[in-house]
């Protein structure tokens, strides 16, 4: 099973990287961009075939290692083999 974990800085927290990217995009002509949040994405291949168990395990990974919940939020998706 293939899953994707996305980790973003928490909404209310300063995201200097996102801000720098937005400013740079504006400088090169993408004036259309209102906001950028810059985070991490992990594509994870698991042995687990059960969707629910996999989700549970992934959330556990986020709490334990992939995300720092003091400053980051995370989201977990199952990709069902079709990667973007």
């Amino acid at each position: 099973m293939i899953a994707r974990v996305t980790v973003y800085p928490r909404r209310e927290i300063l995201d200097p990287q996102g801000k720098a990217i937005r400013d740079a995009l504006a400088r090169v002509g993408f004036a259309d961009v209102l906001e950028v949040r810059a985070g991490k994405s992990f594509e994870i291949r698991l042995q687990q075939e059960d969707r629910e168990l996999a989700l549970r395990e992934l959330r556990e990974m986020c709490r334990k290692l992939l995300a720092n919940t003091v400053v980051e939020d995370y989201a977990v998706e199952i990709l069902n083999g079709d990667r973007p």
Partner: protein
Amino acid sequence: MASIARGEAEPPVTAELARAQGVTAEELERLHAMLGRDPNYTELGITAALWSEHCSYKSSKVYLKEFPTSGPHVVQGPGENAGVVDVGHGWVAVFKMESHNHPSFIEPYQGAATGVGGILRDVFTMGARPIACLDALRFGEIDAPRMRFLIDGVVRGIGGYGNCVGIPTVGGETGFHSCYNGNILVNAFALGIARRDHIFKARASGAGNPILYAGSRTGRDGIHGATMASESFDAESEAKRPTVQVGDPFTEKVLLEACLEAMRGGAIVAIQDMGAAGLTSSTFEMAGRGGTGMVLDLDRVPLREPGLTPYEMMLSESQERMVVVARRGQEEEVARIFRRWGLEVAAIGEVTATGRAELRWHGERVADLPIQPLTEEAPVYRRPAAPPADLAARQAPPQVPQPADQGGALAALERLLGTPELGSKEWIWHQYDYSVRTGTVVGPGADAAVLRLKGTSSGLALKSDVNPVYCALDPRTGGAQAVAEAMRNLACVGAEPVGLTDCLNFGNPENPEVSWQFREAVRGMAAACRALGVPVVSGNVSFYNETEGRSIHPTPTVAMVGVIPSLDDLPAGHFTGAGDRIVLLGRDRGEHGGSAYLRLLYDVEQGRPPAVDLDAELRLARLLRRLVSRGLVTTAHDLAEGGFAVALAEACFGRGLGAAVDLEGIGLAGADLFSETQARALVACRPEAAERVLREAEEAGVPAADVGAAGGDQLAVKSGGELLRAPVAALREIWATALPRALGL
């Protein structure tokens, strides 16, 4: 007087609400009397911040007065954003140290990073260009919960920030002790240089001068940071956790350049960073020092997200922000410079002559407070102090096992070198850029770091020191020892001290034992400073370092700065030439109280710490400086934790050059190889200089003995019979890998 607006959602001020913000009933009463009416929520918040321990020093002030703060080199003592000392050639050094303990425990990366950011701003706020940082770190036992995460995060955070701003981190110290399991210490030091006549102060003056806001926008970050730093940790602080402050070192770097550029122009009257308690402390302190008042128009404060209340704006601790008082009519000149560096600037108010702070928002007056009563005249407490009940037991002379009982001196040495406490800290400092700015002549890994003063022949030396175990056993001796050790480290590179800064990390001052520890430590430091002629020019107090009622060891970190007249004959901290004679300076008295040997090998933390003989320290330091300035020594390294054996081994590690010493003549053997008697150092010199070195020592009144020679690839110690012999490479491996091994890397 017109009425004060009360925000719709804001609670009325009650004694209970005040207490929740750390304001006592008496303090609320005092505020009430000052205003002649009830304060509103915003006013209470501002007062709580200004009267917090962190901003007001209310429990420490009475003792801090005992420090000597003046001297021939002092240009600016405590009271400004940083201390200033003259270092010659028209230059001054501007430096300070500050704690970021609580934020680092919550979020180590950001906590440590913003600690570095804050101390850098304190320095460049004075018009100085930062040229070096030190970090003094205290962690718990590596196996304690979260500790690996905390260590990793703190080290990354310090590097992440300092490296990016481009200020070298040239030294520091790192210790591990179970007393920090629930409350680590992160003390950041920064030093900058400026021309003597180009120092800026944070005194708002000139009614009508505009107040500018420059840098990052204001968000809800760290609201209550100052009051949090004034409380102890408990299960609840998890829930009270404010929005973590995130550092943006890139913005700091451009802010630094913009500020220094703007300060060159003459359009700036005063400038101050927004540190703890953000806009509140910066504006109130500036007006308080200047004896002026101000009007702030909060609608003009640049916000990161809409909807912040006046309370939130005044207490936000968003990073990388400055308040600038410009000369009226020249504000555009200042603003242009900030904009050129890509920074936002806004005029948010003006200086007045009223002595009051008036805050306006949405067409209403939302706060109106007298400034000096809140700042200069904040409450001061002399807290009850009492020595711990078990002091006598703690100080009872310990049993000192001989190494022979446990596999001999070599085994003891190997075990000591293999602890994270005494092992090399290079795993940490290789993550810090210590060579950027090309000023670093001696970086981390030696006794004191050495920076050159470009364009002159001289240099600056810096080092931070403290031994918390000594301080726990006898805070007065421990306080004095920290000052003495820092001076000894400086003397090893030939530096004459010109001033020091400190960061006094203690438990809850409302606990009489802590209050006593604080008083004793400060007195010990003050006595040492006086005797050694080193003024205290800045510093910081961090109280409430305790978890679930358990205080940390008293940890008064000292960072000392010295001047080296010429860098031509700088000795190394390690042996550099085979055949060089090794001379031990100072005499052992077999002192083991609080020693690394007892603590790390036998888990005994008991006894009186080694006595500090300030006269002996002074004689030793003078001798070392003299030896260095005459180019008589190739190596100089002081004795500290682990005593003679550890110092000798360290001196071998730099180049992998061995040493053979015979200690029979001075009667040093057994456990005393590891004794921690103070006022001692190892030097090495060319064989032909040995006699001269011994003579100089005799003239200086410092006991000295030629104990052997450097050379070969073995470390060999005998005293009568052979005490230990081992290949340097093997010992070095144990020492160099100690920390990563303990971290499981």
